[in-house]
């Protein structure tokens, strides 16, 4: 796919650019977590979780869009559709299996009960 034209981002070669983005973000991730644990108690875990999640999403989009040719190729649109197809089933699985551990909810919320309306 030696296409011309759009294989550079901000002037750099898109793969090299993506590579360095990934390296830098991984370093951020590791350093953030290491700092949090070594300075116990100063940074709350939610900040770390937020960093991890956002960095994870950026790296994920980077890899799939550029490295896996899901963007900028003639066939990338239909392959993106194929790649995103299982997302519905993954969301159902995470909701139905991941977030319903036994202690999670042991009674039906009131608005689900017929008594609530009569």
């Amino acid at each position, binding site marked *: 796919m030696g296409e011309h034209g759009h294989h550079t981002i901000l002037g750099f070669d898109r793969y090299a650019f993506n590579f360095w983005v990934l390296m830098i973000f991984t370093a951020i991730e590791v350093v953030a977590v290491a700092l949090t644990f070594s300075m116990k108690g100063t940074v709350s875990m939610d900040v770390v979780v937020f960093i991890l999640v956002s960095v994870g999403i950026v790296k994920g989009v980077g890899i799939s869009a550029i490295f896996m040719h899901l963007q900028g190729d003639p066939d990338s649109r239909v392959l993106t559709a194929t790649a995103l197809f299982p997302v519905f089933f993954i969301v159902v699985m995470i909701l139905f299996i991941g977030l319903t551990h*036994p202690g999670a909810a042991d*009674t*039906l919320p009131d608005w*689900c*009960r*017929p*008594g609530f309306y009569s």
Partner: protein
Amino acid sequence: MEAGGDVFHMLFDEWNFWSAIVMIIVSVWLFHHSLKYRAKDGKSMGESCDEFIPGVFPKENDNLKMELTWTIVPFILIVYLTYIAWGPLDEMWSADPDAHEIGVTANQWFWDFDCMADDPEDAETIGQQNVAYNDDGEVICEISTIDVEGETKPLLRVKAEQSLAFIMTSNDVTHAPFFLDWGIKEDTQPGMETRLYYTPSVDEVGSSLLMCTEYCGKQHSTMTAVVEVFA
């Protein structure tokens, strides 16, 4: 005595009625079409048959109005049935605060009931004998043994009109007590507590066999007990 509680029979009759209607419609439609549109001599083509040529996608044969009707009408029936089925959920799943709690512990291949007497000194804990009283001294729950086909099995006697809350757990694998006459069952999961709320009515007086209805190994079928409702 009859298997299944009144809630079950109310819903069951409703479902039977609508199932009969749907089945009649389908059967009449099926037999009428399969007999009326029979090929007389096996070769003749009916007036509105389609000419099939291999490799040629045939003419369209659909009618939007009909297809919409047999999408919407069953949907309405389903919504109606869901509404009816939604009714009993309330009393099935709501904890009645002053219900008397009965502990049900399932083990590999025997049941272990516990009347959880309100104040301990009332409960004579001699062997299996375990009794609980309500405020005005009447016995509301009593455990003893009974002989089922040559083996001694636990007998749980509960008082009619007394609202009960079964607190169920298991010591090893999943089991499930099936109260045949009341038409209810719930799994006893190890490491978890599941609950069943029921108030036996007066006309459910009598004793019925309690069977294990979640596969639990070798003697799954002989893991029985007897539940007796007394006036």
